[in-house]
């Protein structure tokens, strides 16, 4: 089976975090395409292939920040996981919040996992790499139609 390119949708409004994530992901052996949505509405436009995203691909995995402008990540998560077509896409919450309520609520709304973004840069890169290693080479992802 030829190696597939993994399509990742990163929903993140902080440009710094986007750059860090991009760099951390680029170092990994499995080729991946990183797509970025900067707020909740863009994320949904991307997933529903609307407007400027009408040619968007379906992501294999979504990295989702919670605190986003326009529509926050919590609402995006709910919409994804209640959509019969989109719900199979793994959603990894990647948020600065370590509040119990945020963590609990994300899992209740079927987030696949929740990761608190480390403040320390090296740790952040390490976490992104672990995430990538786990989700892109250990886990079997659902089929992308």
């Amino acid at each position, binding site marked *: 089976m030829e190696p597939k390119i993994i399509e990742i949708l990163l929903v993140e409004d902080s440009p710094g975090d986007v750059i860090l994530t991009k760099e951390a992901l680029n170092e990994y052996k499995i080729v991946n395409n990183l797509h970025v949505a900067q707020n909740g509405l863009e994320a949904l436009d991307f997933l529903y292939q609307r407007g400027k995203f009408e040619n968007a691909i379906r992501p294999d995995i979504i990295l989702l920040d919670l605190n986003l402008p326009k529509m926050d990540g919590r609402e995006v998560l709910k919409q994804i996981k209640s959509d019969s077509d989109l*719900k199979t896409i793994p959603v990894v919450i990647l948020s600065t919040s370590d509040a*119990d309520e945020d963590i609990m609520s994300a899992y209740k709304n*079927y987030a696949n996992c929740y990761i608190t973004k480390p403040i320390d840069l090296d740790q952040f890169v390490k976490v992104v790499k672990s995430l990538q290693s786990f989700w892109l080479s250990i886990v079997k992802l659902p089929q992308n139609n």
Partner: protein
Amino acid sequence: MMKGTVIEILLVEDNPGDVQLTREALQEYKLYNHLHVAVDGEQALNFLFRKGVYKEAPVPDLILLDLNIPKVSGHDVLIRIKQEEQLRNIPVVILTTSEDKEDIQKAYENYASCYIAKPMDFSSFVEIVKELNDFWISIVALPRMKSI
């Protein structure tokens, strides 16, 4: 992950060899964890719903679930967990021999956190279990039911 917390893991697995391997892989792990084992789907549900002998069972922080188990299938156990208000937040990692596309798809449709196909050989299996634990125990924030 908070220091000093104990992670309660429920392993739903009917193969004693796989149970043993998982147990050993977890024991090497530095963080404190309790492994509970259910050998079929009915036991798993009794554990989770604290029925009979399991009335004092802790709520697991993480569930490792084989699909091909006796009495109640892994798929049905998953569905049941994810429908239940008090249990749906528990991450369920499917850990099974099947690499069948339908099984994988169905698991994600029913809100499995992730799906891992068990490798056939011993050392790869141990490696996978360690990676799984590394990720779920030290990287991931698990939902805490109580703040103790």
